[in-house]
């Protein structure tokens, strides 16, 4: 069974993303913000894909991924970032984080599905 972690502070977005992922055969864990997500990352489930919003209260998506990459088991895990702003962050902040894909909200369902499929093939 493949595991996915969905991080977004907006419940409805999480629901949509989770539903698509479930259709793709993932077991989905949802987290409200970066800090919440870190709890799950330290837990027993090893996630195969992580989908995270950028701007969230408490802890945003970029610090989350920075933290994530320091964990040996998550060095190469596929990460997809969701963002409302196409111009969200400065380049140097995301360098070396190996982010697979940026998706601008509102994003297209088919596009998202395709990206997920791509991630799985790698």
């Amino acid at each position: 069974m493949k595991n996915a972690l969905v991080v977004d502070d907006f419940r409805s977005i999480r629901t949509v993303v989770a539903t698509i992922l479930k259709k793709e055969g993932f077991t989905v864990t949802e987290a409200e913000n970066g800090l919440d997500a870190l709890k799950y990352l330290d837990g027993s489930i090893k996630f195969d894909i992580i989908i995270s919003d950028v701007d969230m209260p408490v802890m945003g998506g970029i610090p989350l991924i920075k933290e994530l990459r320091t964990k040996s088991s998550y060095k190469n895990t596929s990460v997809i970032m969701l963002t409302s702003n196409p111009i969200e962050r400065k380049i140097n902040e995301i360098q070396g984080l190996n982010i697979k894909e940026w998706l601008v909200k509102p994003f297209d369902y088919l596009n998202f599905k395709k990206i997920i499929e791509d991630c799985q093939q790698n």
Partner: protein
Amino acid sequence: MEEFSQIFVDEASEHIAKLEEAVLKLENDKNNHELIDQIFRVMHSLKGAAGMFGFEKIGEYTHGLEDIYENIRTGKTEITEELIDITFDSVDHLRNLLANPELSDKKIQIRHYDLIKIIKTIKGNIGAEENIKNIQEKIIVKNEFNNNNNASYYIYFKPHSEILNEGIDPLLIISDLSKFGESKVFKNIDYVEDLRLLDVTKCYTCWHIFLSTNSSVNEIKDHFIFVESKSELKISKICSFNIFKKNGIIEKLESVIKSAKNKDIDIEREIINAISLNGKRDFSNTEKNKKNRENTKSTIKVSSEKLDELMNLVSELVTAQAELGVLSNLHNIQKLTTVAENIEKISRSLRDNALNICLVPIEEMIFQFKRLVRDLSNELNKEIEFQTEGTDTELDKRLIENLKEPFMHIFRNAIDHGIESSDERISKGKKSTGTIKLKAYYSGAEVHIQIIDDGNGMDPERIREKAIQKKLIKKEDELSKKEILELIFQPGFSTAEVITDVSGRGVGMDVVKRKINEINGIVEVESEINEGTTITIKLPLSLSIIDALLVKIDKTPFLLPLSFVDKCDEASTDQIINSVNNRIKIDDELIPLIYLRKEFEIDKNCPEMHRLIIIKYDGKKIALVVDSIVGEHQAVLKPLGEVECKKEIITSACILGDGSVALVMDTNKLVEYYGKRKEKRENNYYEKLKFKL
């Protein structure tokens, strides 16, 4: 996506409510970064999520506000009154947009563009150029798109007249649009000046563009990012298919553009009309309509009468079920018992559900009052702080509906006549800001809601004079202060010397009293000159059915609301009679007790062991002593009407399964009533009891 939009509507409503609360707080605390952050975040999340669920207009709307709050967040600019006002307007407008995502209501449509324009001007003042610089430093993340072209947009682009001087070629922007998909551009040269006045360095042309693409509004918008802040730009989705693939549409649209000329707002509507008239109904529109219908289905308005009827029927069912329970116990038939137990379970959850439908926290109506206090105090130039307490107190929806109007009245009165102007307050040695507090709490089987102001209070002498003048009382009448204050509830009484727009003329507290009385409530008023006025509204917990504990004293059944019962214990008669200071030790704790046998003066058939019901009163534990506990009972409360009994402690009656009547005790009042009484008959009673034993 359709199935998710209801989830979005629900969540967005929550966020908008939070937004309103944050803005209200922000108004008093303009430098609170947490609040600014919160507002920004709501705008930001709404913008992102709205588009996902087909609420493009919300995305479009929040975009501008988000930018403004981002600037405030990063300290580039400060909050102005104007901004707070527009944010309030936006809260209302966002709610409208949620209910009406397609802007089919003309009024909302006009409002939509007006507000966007205002937001743009505010945003324009906040260093637009700086923004562009920042943007250049940032990276642009772009989405891939394919050529399905599954939606068509109408774009109205009117660059600002200085655009050419800034070295930007509007034609390049427009021709670049073709990378999004198929497009058709119509020029509009209506704004070009007379040749003699023409300034060749200025741009006078504007364009109507039809674009078929599968990019989103925001992506198209981003295309105009460098010119957007100063230009007039409108992007709206007109349908969910490629208009270039349907014959005849483009021709029609061309004629619409030509005939509409400068009436910008109408164009959009005309376009949509033209497309739907083309005989091929837009699929997404019918889909949306369906969704709208579903929205209305999921939150229907039901008349209070229907709810009343439902509650009545449930009451009857509960009573009938109790009878069934007694019967099944009597006959002891296995199958009957199973059925009876099943019915009890069902009727219980049916009852809970029915009650739940009618119950809402009063928080819901408080927002309106916050708004009222804010708007009115601005209007009257008074500084007023609005405080609330116990807003999670739940009340029957019907009651809340009936309460709004009287509350509005009380608030208006408090703001208009109660709270003084800042100068006056300072001269009286008070804080310059007045306070109005709404406090709600449960009191036994009642909910009390108080509206407390710290204004100038009411002068009993003036009320008395006024009442005499109005011939409500006679000069020689002697009235207590309380009675005088009650006079304000008389029809046609108004103490304000100058009638203001705010509290109206003459229709005043009498309406309040009548309305409250209509729902079986009581209004009380307390007031001290210069200290303020407290208006207390006491409402019955309209819960006509409650869970209760059925107990017996001698052979008489009584009911105690289960919600107040903490635990049950037992004690011997000896322990109770010999208790010191009326206290008994339970779990290493000395708890005061009320011996109901003694209080009700029942001395027959005294059992050897008594049951203790430990109840909560004002956070403390108190033990009520009864003879025996029968069990839990779903009590359908019936008003006592004119029956003569101790109304101080008995609130209502209930018909038990065997047809007998049990009285429902109000534990709070019971404690107050017997707790205050001196130990008058006590010795006497115990003497008698000992003698019998």
